[in-house]
């Protein structure tokens, strides 16, 4: 299970399509191993008081870094949804049901999806940049020499923090979307706020909520795994750190889209 950092380097320069595909699979494999190892190290996060402190620090960083953006995005997504859906529904005199539309779409998709994108951009990028800088400065090597497993010391607390914070942030963004939708319903479509809220709350479904939060959890794991892997396999100095950061964000975005669809497909069948 345990591997040295060296095996994260991509030694060969990609020349043929075959080698590229081979490299892709090996990177996916390493990322999976890295994540699984970090999950196996969670008990240590609970037992050791320094590790616990580091977990709290990371949770704080994740929350604080993304909170303003999640707040704004949550509000505006709700507002846009209410406006678009409301205009359409008004044609059939059904604008009183906007609440249901906003609630269901944020719980099922928008909450976790937007949180995933925001976490990729705000948190994933800085994880890749920080760990990448540590890699090119030999700080990871220094940890290894001191027999401090970088996966335990760096990856595990970040992963734990993300797994806790991503669902919380997704839930928070759902709440704000519903509130934002309510504001638009009241001001643009003259639906009374309480009526809107009642219909929204009535249409909230526990299954939708759990699937949405589960998706956010999966996004948290993916983003952390991808960003830490990109950080750890950084080579070639400052240029490499830039490349690792960009790579981490791009791959995380794509994964949020693709895996998000797959999870949805798993829980909602026609």
């Amino acid at each position, binding site marked *: 299970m*345990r591997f040295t950092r*060296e095996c994260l380097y991509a*030694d060969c*320069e990609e020349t043929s399509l075959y080698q590229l595909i081979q490299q892709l699979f090996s990177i996916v494999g390493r990322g999976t191993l890295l994540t699984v190892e970090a999950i196996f190290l969670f008990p240590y996060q609970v037992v050791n008081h320094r590790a616990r402190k580091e977990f709290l620090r990371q949770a704080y960083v994740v929350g604080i870094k993304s909170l303003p953006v999640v707040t704004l995005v949550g509000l505006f997504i709700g507002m846009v949804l209410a406006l678009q859906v409301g205009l359409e529904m008004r044609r059939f005199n059904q604008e009183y049901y906007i609440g249901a539309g906003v609630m269901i779409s944020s719980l099922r998709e928008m909450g976790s999806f937007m949180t995933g994108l925001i976490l990729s951009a705000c948190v994933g990028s800085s994880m890749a940049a920080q760990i990448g800088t540590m890699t090119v*400065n*030999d700080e990871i090597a*220094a940890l290894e020499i001191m*027999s401090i497993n970088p996966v335990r010391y760096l990856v595990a607390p970040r992963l734990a923090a993300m797994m806790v914070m991503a669902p919380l942030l997704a839930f928070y963004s759902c709440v704000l979307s519903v509130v934002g939708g309510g504001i638009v319903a009241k001001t643009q479509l003259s639906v009374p706020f309480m009526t809107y809220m009642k219909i929204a709350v009535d249409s909230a479904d526990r299954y939708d909520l759990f699937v949405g939060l589960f998706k956010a959890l999966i996004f948290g794991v993916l983003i952390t795994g991808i960003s830490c892997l990109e950080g750890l396999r950084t080579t070639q100095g400052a240029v490499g750190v830039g490349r690792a950061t960009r790579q981490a964000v791009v791959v995380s975005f794509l994964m949020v889209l693709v895996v998000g669809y797959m999870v949805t497909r798993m829980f909602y069948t026609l």
Partner: protein
Amino acid sequence: MIRFEQVTKILGGQKILDDVSLTIEKGEIFTIIGSSGSGKSVTLKHIVRLLTPTHGKVFVDGIEVSAAEGAELEKARSLFGYLFQGGALLGWMSVFDNVALPLRERERISEAEVEKRVMESLKMVGLENDGHKFPNEISGGMQKRAGLARAIIHRPQIILYDEPTSGLDPVTARTIDALIHRLNAELGITSVVVTHDLQGAVLISDRIAMLVRGKFVEPSTPEAFIKATHPDVRAFLDAQFIPPEGMAGQWQSAVAVGSKTPRTKE
């Protein structure tokens, strides 16, 4: 103590080390010189398996580190202190916490004991008043000295120094040379020093070798080394104004700046 057996390392399609065989004895100061990018850091990293040879084997104290895993590798690594080229301090911790890290993570000792040993170590490198500062608040030379304090804190048997004096002012550089010499002379610590600074190397080393195009040229005593005729070695010596007949006399006074026990070569 440390043995390279026909080690070849290919990085990015380039042969950085080419069939290197080398033995470093217990208790000696072995200095590696060479131009930038010649693979000196790569050589050091092989000793503690931060890099694995493409071909060949590396042994430390009878353990084949190039194939060791898990507990065995950890045991081998615990023999070492490693001063990285840039210091490699963790940016979010103070100098004190950085130096304390190996003790806190590895040894079950009281916080008072940790503090005592950290202060001792910081004093050795002349940073006893800078423990509370963060790595980005101190100069590159101070970061390097803090890295040295961290490398010696757990009392290793072997210390690997990657350019310990580059970027330091000449007086501090001689102090560090003297410290390397003292750790070796008083505690018998085997030392592998990578440096560009031949003046210092000639003063403290037992043997010097130059890395040229992936191969080590003439590991030999300083006296023999400065008389070398190999064109690359000669160019390196001439660039630092070291004539084959040496500069006896001047050296002793230089080392006396930093050390109470200047070593007499000759």
